[in-house]
């Protein structure tokens, strides 16, 4: 067990690729700012504050990609831990939740700021808004729950069980909120007949959106890998401390 954890958490797999990813993420974010604020054409069917606010969209969708990846990482990490019982998978899940929380809050904040000029309200109980908020609450609950368990493997096992149960409920939350009411446009696939304001993206807007989504994905990866490494080193310190005091 100890040797396996040592291998997984060893820093020997190199810090250079991680640093390269950091630089890539930083450059990508600069390009994203340029593409979404300058390159992309202003929205043709909007005017004034609404037209300016529409540019939040690129950061809104970008943060959304980060939150989605965090969600995937936590589900896969939790399943992986329960199958293999290797703490490596648990660290993937925990790092995914932590970074996903940051992005999730970003989605909610940018969405609220954008909704105020567009929908004339900061908040509405739209399915996407509801689901995003509930997911962030589940993330926070997950992190609080982990804090309360001392034994490392018990913590990994219990939080994996919680993550799987909680994330099973997310689609149900989405569909029940969708039946409840929706005014949010469906951007990438399908249509929402009740949406307030349709969505058609011009070519420069599509390019800016793709750039933004890709660079936020790189940013997520960079933060996630850093956190996974850090958690691995943390586990290693605990192991060494236990060996020392035994």
């Amino acid at each position, binding site marked *: 067990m100890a040797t396996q954890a040592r291998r997984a958490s060893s820093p020997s797999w190199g810090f250079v690729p991680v640093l390269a990813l950091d630089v890539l993420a930083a450059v990508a974010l600069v390009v994203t700012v340029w593409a979404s604020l300058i390159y992309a054409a202003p929205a043709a069917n909007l005017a004034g504050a609404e037209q300016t606010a529409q540019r939040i969209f690129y950061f809104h969708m970008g943060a959304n990609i980060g939150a989605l990846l965090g969600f995937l990482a936590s589900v896969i990490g939790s399943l992986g831990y329960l199958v293999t019982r290797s703490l490596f998978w648990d660290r993937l899940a925990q790092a995914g939740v932590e970074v996903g929380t940051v992005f999730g809050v970003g989605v909610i904040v940018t969405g609220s700021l954008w909704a105020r000029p567009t929908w004339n309200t900061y908040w509405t109980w739209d399915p996407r808004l509801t689901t995003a908020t509930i997911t962030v609450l589940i993330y926070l609950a997950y992190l609080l*729950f982990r804090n309360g368990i001392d034994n490392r493997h018990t913590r990994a096992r219990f939080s994996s069980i919680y993550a799987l*149960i909680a994330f099973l*409920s997310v689609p*149900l939350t989405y569909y029940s909120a969708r039946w409840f009411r929706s005014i949010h446009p469906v951007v990438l696939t399908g249509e929402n007949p009740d949406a307030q304001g349709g969505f058609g993206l011009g070519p420069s807007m599509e390019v800016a959106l793709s750039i933004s989504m890709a660079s936020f994905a790189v940013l997520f990866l960079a933060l996630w890998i850093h956190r996974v490494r850090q958690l691995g080193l943390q586990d290693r310190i605990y192991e060494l401390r236990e060996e020392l005091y035994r």
Partner: protein
Amino acid sequence: MGEPLVRFPAPESAPPEVDLPKAGRSGVQMAPGQGLRAYLGKVQAIALKELRVEWRAREVSTTMVVFGLLAAIVFGMAFDLRVPSPQMVVPGILWVIVLFTGVVGLHRSFAAEVDRDTLAGLLLAPMDRSAIYFGKLLANLLYLLMAEALLLPALLILFDTNLFQPTILVGLFLGSLGYAEVGTLFAALTAHSRAREALLPVLLLPVMVPVFIAGASLTAGVLDGAPGSGVGRWLSMLVLYDLLFVVAAYLLFDLIWEA
């Protein structure tokens, strides 16, 4: 490797005086062997054991009932004369009270076993661990339904709204079942945590959102009486929730007790 999940009393301490139930006196014969019949017998044995403990201590059910009534009165004071028609707020009030009432009682489900040092004995019982889960689930469901049975008349008096309608009652049962399913599992997860009373609602409530939306919408739909308000859709959402989580809990419950 770390602290054990199950703590046994120190060997030098005298064995505690326990009023052991005598076989036969309890009226439950645990069927030995395999098969569905034997399994159901074990579930029944656990459920009856829960109810017998509860009947003697009256710890959980009374708290839940009193809390539910208290919450109804607080909501009554909060909304009285502030809303044009009480029917507009009753669906939300009903389901908020159900969620909060449940959480008051659910955390005792396994925490009481930890506090009384009886968890080890329970886990050593010669049965599939899932039988323990289903037994406790039944007991928790019963407490919830009991609290709701007293809550509905209170809402009738305070808000002048008759909730005794078949569809609402079915919805309330299905919602409570889903709540007890997830709640019993999470009660087992948090039983050893330091701040379990505070932690359980934080874990449980975000997961209960589908039940809350479906239940409140169902109740509102029935009260409004509008045809085609999607009552059937909300019932099917509750059934789906119940089925999904009973299977998930059955699969995951065993994993809690490995040490």
